[in-house]
Structures are given as structure tokens and as C-alpha cells.
């Protein structure tokens, strides 16, 4: 608020007899006074020599909490200036008094309760009829304004600190992104000090421009954060990668005034990711080729073994036949290991294929168990219960899971003589539980046994052979069928491995 006309006022209280101005008619003075009293602007008058108030606007009582009469004590003003402001405010007044007719300054006074009030004090110096210097003025309470200013200043300070401390590129764009107003490149990107229009060409490689612009258009349309990982022309001219994020700055009407962005240099990370991806592809291809190459000699050896087996049978050499049977079993193990290796690399690369079709669940379970039983002399494999359901799944993979669970059950119960396969179903799932009566699993292993390459090593348990990928593959297969695979186990009592498959996948 600007106050152009500075005027002296006369207070009509009995305690104040000073007549300051004779020129203004009393009626108008009263009206003016009333007007002032209805605002937050507190008028005052004082003796320039002593600083003692000769008049104070009645609003002062409400603002500062002191009774009005206190204001007329000799050193009220000086006493109630904030101690930190007292000295300079007083000095400022003394100097201004000598050199100026009008002046204004800002300082703090304390209220009765000790609260700080920021005041803008607008002062006029006049001389009264007796030749004495008289001060008149207004207090304007600017506490709220000061608070807001302080907050703004602190936030600006923080913002400046942030933009200085960050290693990110900082940039500002016009509302429609046609103009880049500023970019601090941090040696990663070239700086832009003055607004430029050709920023797209300057920073974004041609093949990325369309992608970047589409994302920007989307952000402008939704007034939402712009966020993108893209390639960028680095300050040294080479191509790099950045993760860039910009937020729209809105005015009070919600109109975008500017986009403020930060972009981090992710070039190293991207290159590392690419190298890793290439290494993984290379590894998977290698495993794929290697396992294929391994299968060829195994096929050949297996055929010869079986030919010899037949031959020894024909000539009645029972010992040779037995040995060859054992050899054949080992070849089957070798084949399984090769398949496991291939399966893991396929799962890792997300390339494991599933051929789903509808099949009778109980029939397949029986088929798998029959085959396993044929090669098993010690353990009796007992199927209990029925599902009576058809499921839509990859028959071979589900068979693989069951084989794996049963093979484990046999392997980890060397002293037991049976494994029970429980079948059950409800209207949502079919469930299988493979129960063994073997060494069981300690609690600490339970959560980890479905992890890749995890093997149970225990000081008390003897270790068992394997790559530690069978359960990992099984759990991935069940996951891909939207089913569940879990385990219950007690050390020395045995384990129960469960899996369930949802029926809702059935396609008619």
C-alpha cells in the first residue's frame, strides 16, 4: 500500500494536549482518524527529542497487547523494540531525523506475550508552532508478509543449493517445449546459457527425436511429469544415455509457466547393462550349443550300450548284461543333467516353450509313476486319491515336475521303502503331494530350495549329488502355469512337496 499524503493527526484524549496541525478542519481530522482506526495501519505521533508517544492508534492495543496508556510512558518505543533491532533502529532514526523529511524502515517489536511483530514504520518529520520537531507516522504490521518472504527465501536458498550440489543436468523449458531457456550440462552435456530453439537437434540424436517428442507431447497434454530414458548427444560429441525427468511449474490458475527438469547420466549403467545382456545371450547360446553337442555322443553310447545289452542277453552273459544295465542308467542320468542345463538357460532367457493342451490329469500321473516305478527297486511308489479332473497344461513339463519331485523323494529317503503320491482336487485346483519318509529338511533351507543352484549342505546331513536346479526348474514350470509349489518338512521325519494347478485355465 502506498501512502502519498502524509498528515499529522490530533489526538482527542485528555492526556494529550499537543496541537500539531491547525490547517485541517477538525471534522475532517476526525473522519480521517476513524478511517485509519478501522484499518491495520496504526497511526502515531511522538516527540522527536525524547521519542515519547504523544498519540497512538487504538488498534495498537489489539496488535501488541499492551494497554494504550502504557504507550505514553517515556521510553516505551525503545523498550519494546526487539533487542536485536534496537540499536540499529535507533541509530537509523537519529540520522534520518537530521537529514530527511520522510523516511521508512522495517524492524521488529515485541508484544506483551513476547511475540515478534514485524513493522514497516513510515515517518514524517515536521516542526510544530513552538519550533519543536515532531514525528508522525504509521505502523504497518508486515509480520505475515515477512514470514512468507522468509519462507520463499529459504526455499530459494535450498533450491539454489540443490541445483548446485546435484550432479544432474538441470534444464528449464518453455511451456510448449519450443524453447530451452537454460541447461546446466555439468560437463555431461553442452551448456545452454541463453534461450535456444534448436535444442532438439543440439541434444537428441535423430533416431531418438520422435520418441522423445511423443513423450513430451503426452506430458504437455496431461500436464504430468515428463520421464524418459533416452540417448543423448554428450558434450564431447559421443552418444550417451540419460534418464530425464521434468515437472511442469504451474501458476495460480494452473497454467504451465515452465518445465523444470533434471537429467542424470546413465551412460555407464546402460553400457554395463548391454554388456551383461550380451554376455548372458552368449552364455545361453553356448549352453544351448554345448548341450546339443553333448547329446550326440550320449545318443551314440546309449545305442551301443543297448545293443551290447541285447547281445549279452542272447549269449546268456548275465554279468555283462547287469553291468550294461547300470551303464545305461548312468547314461539316463547324464541325459537328464544335460536337459536340466538347457532348461535353466532357457528359463533364464525367457525362452522356455510351453505346449498346453487338455489332458486327463490322473492318467498322466499314473503314467509317470509307472515309468519311475519300473526303474526303481527299493521304494514302492503309491498313488493315493484321485482328482477326476482334466487340466489344460503342458503335459511333458508337468510330468517333468512330478518326476523331479518323486526322484528327489527317493534320493532323500535312502532308508525308507515307499513314497506316497497324494492326489486331490476342488473346484479351483488339482493338487499333488509327494510325501517321503527320509531325512527331511531343516527350517533354514525351506525358503531357499526353490532357488537356482541351491543345494542343501549340512554338517549332519551327507550331501547328495545334483546341480541344484531341478526344483528351480520345477518351480518355474509351475509358476508359468499360474500354479503353486511348496514344501512342508521335518528334519528326520521326511518331506511333503506339494504343487497345485488352477483349473480355470481349461479351454473348451
Amino acid at each position, binding site marked *: 500500500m502506498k501512502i502519498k499524503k502524509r498528515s499529522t493527526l490530533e489526538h482527542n484524549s485528555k492526556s494529550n494536549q499537543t496541537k500539531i496541525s491547525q490547517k485541517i478542519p477538525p471534522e475532517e481530522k476526525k473522519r480521517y482518524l476513524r478511517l485509519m482506526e478501522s484499518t491495520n495501519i496504526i497511526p502515531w505521533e511522538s516527540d522527536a527529542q525524547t521519542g515519547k508517544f504523544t498519540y497512538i492508534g487504538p488498534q495498537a492495543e489489539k496488535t501488541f497487547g499492551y494497554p494504550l496508556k502504557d504507550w505514553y510512558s517515556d521510553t516505551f518505543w525503545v523498550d519494546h523494540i526487539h533487542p536485536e533491532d534496537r540499536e540499529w533502529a535507533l541509530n537509523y532514526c537519529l540520522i534520518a531525523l537530521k537529514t530527511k523529511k520522510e523516511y521508512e524502515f522495517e524492524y521488529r517489536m515485541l508484544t506483551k506475550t513476547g511475540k515478534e511483530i514485524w513493522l514497516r514504520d513510515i515517518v514524517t518529520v515536521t516542526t510544530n508552532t513552538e519550533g519543536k520537531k515532531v514525528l508522525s507516522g504509521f505502523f504497518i504490521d508486515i509480520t505475515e508478509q515477512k514470514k512468507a518472504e522468509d519462507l520463499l527465501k529459504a526455499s530459494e536458498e535450498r533450491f539454489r543449493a540443490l541445483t548446485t550440489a546435484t550432479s544432474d543436468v538441470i534444464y528449464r523449458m518453455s511451456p510448449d517445449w519450443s524453447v530451452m531457456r537454460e541447461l546446466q550440462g555439468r560437463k555431461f552435456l553442452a551448456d545452454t546459457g541463453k534461450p535456444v530453439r534448436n535444442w532438439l537437434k543440439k541434444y537428441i540424436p535423430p533416431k531418438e527425436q520422435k520418441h522423445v517428442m511423443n513423450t513430451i507431447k503426452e506430458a504437455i497434454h496431461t500436464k504430468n511429469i515428463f520421464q524418459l530414458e533416452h540417448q543423448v548427444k554428450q558434450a564431447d560429441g559421443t552418444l550417451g544415455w540419460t534418464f530425464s525427468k521434468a515437472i511442469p511449474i504451474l501458476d495460480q490458475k494452473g497454467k504451465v509457466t515452465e518445465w523444470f527438469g533434471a537429467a542424470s547420466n546413465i551412460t555407464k549403467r546402460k553400457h554395463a547393462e548391454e554388456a551383461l545382456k550380451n554376455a548372458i545371450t552368449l552364455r545361453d547360446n553356448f549352453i544351448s550349443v554345448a548341450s*546339443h553337442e553333448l*547329446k*550326440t*555322443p*550320449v*545318443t*551314440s*553310447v*546309449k*545305442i*551301443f550300450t*543297448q*545293443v551290447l545289452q*541285447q*547281445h549279452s542277453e542272447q549269449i546268456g552273459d548275465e554279468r555283462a548284461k547287469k553291468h550294461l544295465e547300470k551303464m545305461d542308467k548312468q*547314461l539316463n542320468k547324464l*541325459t537328464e543333467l544335460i536337459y536340466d542345463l538347457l532348461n535353466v538357460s532357457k528359463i533364464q532367457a525367457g525362452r522356455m*516353450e510351453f505346449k498346453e493342451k487338455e489332458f486327463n490329469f490322473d492318467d498322466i500321473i499314473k503314467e509317470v509313476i509307472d515309468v519311475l516305478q519300473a526303474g526303481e527297486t527299493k521304494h514302492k511308489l503309491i498313488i493315493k486319491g484321485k482328482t477326476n479332473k482334466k487340466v489344460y497344461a503342458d503335459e511333458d513339463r508337468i510330468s517333468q515336475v512330478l518326476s523331479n519331485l518323486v526322484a528327489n523323494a527317493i534320493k532323500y529317503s535312502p532308508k525308507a521303502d515307499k513314497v506316497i503320491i497324494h492326489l486331490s482336487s476342488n473346484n479351483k485346483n488339482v493338487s499333488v503331494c509327494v510325501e517321503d519318509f527320509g531325512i527331511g529338511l531343516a527350517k533354514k533351507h525351506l525358503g531357499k530350495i526353490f532357488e537356482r543352484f541351491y543345494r542343501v549342505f549340512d554338517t549332519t546331513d551327507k550331501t547328495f549329488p545334483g546341480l541344484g536346479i531341478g526344483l528351480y526348474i520345477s518351480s518355474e514350470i509351475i509358476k508359468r502355469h499360474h500354479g503353486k509349489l511348496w514344501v512342508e518338512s521335518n528334519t528326520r521325519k521326511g518331506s511333503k512337496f506339494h504343487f497345485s494347478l488352477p483349473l480355470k485355465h481349461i479351454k473348451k
Partner: protein
Amino acid sequence: MNKKIIVVDDDEGILDALEAMLDVAGYQVVTSLDGEILEKLHKDSLPDLILLDVLLSGKDGREICSRLKKNKITKNVPLIMLSAEPTAAYGAKQCGADDFLAKPFETKKLLAKIDGHITELN
């Protein structure tokens, strides 16, 4: 007379083993590393069955199979494809093979397949 089987595989170890197996089982065996023999078949030299590897070095077993199955003279000869890649079963079916078996396999299983196809034809 013994039934004649042509075996094509680019691996000598496999050819040796299959030859031994089929020989013991009483078949007359002709082996080939590159499958060229299959290109030159005529009415009088037709085998009773063909065993063909899917991936031959430099050649695609599936293409050879397609050609044989399109040719009037050879199309009725039973053809079983073999591969170390179990997923090749689909490709084998696509190109018209009568059967497929993934390597390694049980010899009994292969012999049963061979016997089945030859018996069926007669």
C-alpha cells in the same frame, strides 16, 4: 529278404551306432553323412524306411523331407526324423515326416517305431 533302411546323420558316431543297432535287429542298412543318396532315389532303389536327422551340417533335414514327401516316387516311404532338440518335433510334423524321436532315446522305442511303420505299409 531283409528290409532296407537308409540312415542320414552328419555325425559318424550316430551312424555307427544306428548301423550296429539295425544290423543286430536284422535290417539291411545304408548310411549317409550328407543325405545326397536321398536325392538320387529311383523306383528300384527305394528303401523300406528312412531315418533322417533334422539338422545336418550345411543342409536342413526338414527341406529334404519336404522334397521326398512331395515326390510321387518317394512319398510313401516311411520317414522318421531324429533330433537332439525335442522341440524339433513340430518342425518334423510340418515337413511331412511320419514320425519323430528326440535323441538320446531307448533303442527299443526306435525299433518299435520302425517296425510299426514298416508293418503298416505292408
